[in-house]
């Protein structure tokens, strides 16, 4: 159906080819996943299928690409429109009309299909994608998942034989992503559509792929094979594969189900290690399972779970996630005063559902206070405090009676559907959104009444698109501006940039940076003012696994330095890696607030893969498992 014959693409002004040596055939009815780090040319390969590369983007394409027997060399993209349907990264940039029904019909109108055929296909597509209830809705009022489905529907109506999708689920919450993937699955199985898609979040899509094509490096020839073959050598892989590699499973499992079937031995080993640790609870400061850690770090979890082994395991969780590798004495001190228990101690279990719903919580803490070798920490001043906050916007209640407390050094993940109010909550903490009820305090200030110049010393936000924060032509100019804005020593920002992005030249234009580099630059810019409270909105959108790992390391370091971090994210793996606490929002209300382990373990859609595989034991990330086994 799609055939690449020794294809290489070189863009104008580029030193070398962006992709080279692509020799590939995709058979009819296959679902092929294109994997690789950022910037290896995934979008270029996808563009070559629809003919947009090189007809629209410019550049030189060598070799030959044929789709359904049509050579893209002689066919313009518009002449391929009846066989290839393309959905780009941003569905909003894709829409031509303003209502759902018109959008579905647009492509067919261009192709000149008969009105009766169009009418029938629109109705069929509305049903196929579950859009019937939205047919008259203006596109501007749709949620992210709905928009993605409309975008897919709009290219499906001309009945293309090939569907090309660039990151169809990256911007979506887990439930909406499943919605979209279910639709793709149905197209492939029922209609025999050929699907070629690129996606960073392999954990969401790998199980649906018939074949994976891996682009190992820019300009390197792709590696194609079955998903498990490719995952064995791929530099990008989902947590389930990481766990499989760690445990030495072969062939590698790709789904939680496959992995669970093999995980018995691993579970036993892990149970054994945790018990060992527990039976020897030495009091040496070097042992990470010292008593203070257990109780200070995760008393609630420990008593909630009840089982000793699990309790001890929970300690591991908290510890590996929060403690930076510094001197042990230092660490012990920090751990003791670390605020994982802080909000509970300070807030007195405000979110009753989770905190005080845990049986024996108080008992556990009292016992601990008696035994504790060091004096009880002073309840630290809260970095951010939100009390019964309500926000109304355009007659929509965006937030309703929300409470949130964040202490220094604490990392909180806000999760929930697209449109649940996560961004609004972040916006109100940084003064972009004026509350209609309740109070917001960030570092003792009322954000929306504080002049921006003073506010940046207390709280900083990296918006969904970090490019919004960057105005200058070069990295150096951006840094100089940041120093001026923050009133910091000249060179402060540049030093931060160098720390985050070691090999970046002063004269690079911010627009030439990759997503991950942009995020790092934006982070450095706002950190110049050294705000104790750091907010991030969807930081992992468009990041590959390597960039994500770097981000996790950076944020952990910041948390260890005492920055409070609140991140709104759909990425359950990120939340599992970073967050001490997870706050779930739904329709503008907080529906759960508690330690990460408790919240995500109990939720089918928010549980990370490792948790699902190793349940009923409570593990969150591969890193934890690796450290426990070491």
């Amino acid at each position, binding site marked *: 159906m799609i055939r690449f014959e020794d294809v290489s693409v070189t863009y104008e002004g580029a030193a070398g080819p962006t992709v080279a040596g692509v020799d590939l055939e995709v058979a009819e009815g296959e679902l092929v996943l294109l994997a690789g780090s950022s910037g290896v040319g995934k979008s270029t390969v996808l563009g070559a299928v629809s003919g947009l590369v090189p007809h629209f983007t410019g550049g030189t394409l060598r070799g030959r690409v044929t789709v359904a027997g049509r050579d893209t060399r002689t066919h313009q993209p518009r002449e391929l429109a009846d066989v*290839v349907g393309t959905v780009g990264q941003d569905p909003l940039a*894709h829409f031509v009309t303003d209502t759902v029904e018109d959008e579905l019909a647009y*492509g067919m109108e261009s192709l000149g299909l008969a009105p009766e055929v169009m009418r029938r296909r629109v109705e069929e597509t509305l049903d196929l994608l579950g859009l019937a209830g939205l047919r008259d809705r203006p596109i501007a009022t749709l949620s992210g998942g709905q928009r993605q489905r409309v975008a897919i529907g709009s290219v499906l109506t001309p009945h293309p034989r090939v569907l090309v999708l660039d990151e169809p689920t990256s911007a979506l919450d887990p439930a909406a992503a499943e919605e979209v993937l279910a639709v793709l699955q149905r197209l492939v199985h029922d209609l025999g559509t050929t699907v070629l898609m690129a996606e960073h979040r392999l954990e969401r899509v790998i199980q649906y792929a018939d074949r994976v094509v891996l682009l190992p490096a820019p300009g390197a020839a792709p590696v194609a094979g079955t998903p498990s073959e490719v995952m064995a050598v791929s530099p990008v892989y989902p947590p389930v594969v990481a766990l499989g590699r760690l445990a030495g499973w072969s062939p590698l499992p790709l789904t939680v189900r496959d992995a669970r079937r093999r995980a018995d031995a691993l579970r036993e080993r892990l149970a054994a290690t945790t018990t060992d640790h527990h039976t020897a609870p030495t009091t040496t400061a070097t042992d990470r399972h010292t008593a203070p850690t257990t109780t200070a770090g995760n008393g609630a979890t420990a008593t909630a779970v009840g089982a000793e082994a699990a309790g001890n395991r929970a300690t591991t969780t908290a510890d590996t996630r929060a403690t930076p590798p510094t001197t042990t004495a230092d660490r012990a001190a920090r751990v003791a005063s670390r605020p994982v228990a802080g909000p509970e101690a300070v807030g007195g279990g405000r979110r009753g559902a989770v905190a005080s719903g845990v049986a024996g919580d108080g008992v556990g803490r009292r016992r601990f206070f008696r035994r504790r070798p060091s004096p009880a920490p002073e309840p630290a001043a809260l970095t951010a405090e939100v009390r019964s906050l309500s926000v109304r916007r355009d007659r929509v209640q965006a937030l309703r009676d929300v409470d949130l407390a964040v202490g220094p050094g604490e990392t909180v993940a806000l999760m929930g559907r697209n449109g649940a109010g996560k961004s609004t909550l972040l916006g109100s903490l940084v003064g972009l959104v004026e509350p209609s009820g309740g109070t917001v305090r960030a570092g003792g200030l009322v954000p929306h009444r504080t002049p*921006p110049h003073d506010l940046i010393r207390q709280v900083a936000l990296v918006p969904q698109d970090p490019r919004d924060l960057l105005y200058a032509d070069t990295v150096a100019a951006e840094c100089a501006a940041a120093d001026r804005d923050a009133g910091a020593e000249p060179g402060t920002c540049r030093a931060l940039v160098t720390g985050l992005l070691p090999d970046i030249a002063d004269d690079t234009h911010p627009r030439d940076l990759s997503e991950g580099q942009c995020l790092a630059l934006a982070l450095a810019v706002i950190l110049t003012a050294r705000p104790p409270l750091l907010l991030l909105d969807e930081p992992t959108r468009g990041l590959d696994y390597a960039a994500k790992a770097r981000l996790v390391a950076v944020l952990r370091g910041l948390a260890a330095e005492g920055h409070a971090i609140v991140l709104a994210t759909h990425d359950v793996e990120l939340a599992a890696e970073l967050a001490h606490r997870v706050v779930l929002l739904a329709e503008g209300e907080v529906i759960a607030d508690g330690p990460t382990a408790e919240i995500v373990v109990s939720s089918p859609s928010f549980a990370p893969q490792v948790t699902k595989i190793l349940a009923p034991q409570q593990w969150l990330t591969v890193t934890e498992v690796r450290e426990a086994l070491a």
Partner: protein
Amino acid sequence: MTVHPGAWWLWALGLGTAATRTTNPLLLALLIAASAYVVATHRSSAPWSRSYTAFARLALAVILVRVLFAVALGSPIPGTHTLLTLPEVPLPHWAQGIRLGGRVTAEAVVFAAYDGLKLATLLICVGAANALASPSRLLKSLPGALYETGVAVVVALTFAPHLIADVQRLRAARRLRGRPDRGVRGLLQVGLPVLEGALERSVALAAAMEARGYGRTADVPAPVRRTTAALTLGGLLGVCAGTYGLLTAEGGVYGLPLLLAGVVAALAGLRLGGRRSLRTRYRPDPWDLRAWLVTGSGVAVAALLTLASAHDPGALHPGVVPLVPPTLPLWPAAAVLLALLPAFAVPQPVPREHS
């Protein structure tokens, strides 16, 4: 179910024409009320329907500006009821005929208010058309040859709202950098990033449209192509020459026929040009009985008020010198009420859920 968008526009333009025939504030208020009633009962929940309030505000601003000008710059209306006397700014000799400040008479203010109200009514009628039928839906009814231009216009129309959203987002982002998010300087500094973003989005949209078959053309035989070109060009030339003829004193003989011939040739060219386009229409809005009723009510109001203004100008243009309270002329008022016909002839849109 829905009425052809062209019908709503004709209805609204009919009301607007009627508004230009009178300065009677009671009749104008009646016109505004009638159109507002129809809008209130028949507009959909789409974003463009909210533009009605914007038009209403603009109309209010027009009245205010008109009255303020009359107060500040004086008015040719002679009046005896002095409301107040502003200090008059003496102007040099060459600015004779212009006055700044001075006596403000009730007559001048009332005249300006009537005049402003007329213009405001016209604006509100256009706003009503906008709220009842999106301009882009109207463009769907363009002939095939003009369709692609139409799409380009629609895309350009959506450019402005996107631009405003971008400006708001980037000004908010300035706040995150610790810079003031208000003031003109802030606006200027986000200018470049906003334009860059808009350009990027336009390119992405163009790519999406291209990939979806925008601009596919059918093969047309060469003779047809040439005929199309000749007809269109000849038609446009005819229109130009005809218009010139109509406007000059001595061209009265050939002007009108030439103009008509030009229009016919251009239309034929457009129709023939439509063959190049493969496009078909999805659910075109039918021009049905309701559309006729809606259009008819608008045209009737316009025609009746024109007739009334010729027949009884006094009632439609209440005098300001001497200052008399306006009266409501019975028959023209009844004619204005015809504008309410669509409120009963067209079924109301089903209220939809909005999340």
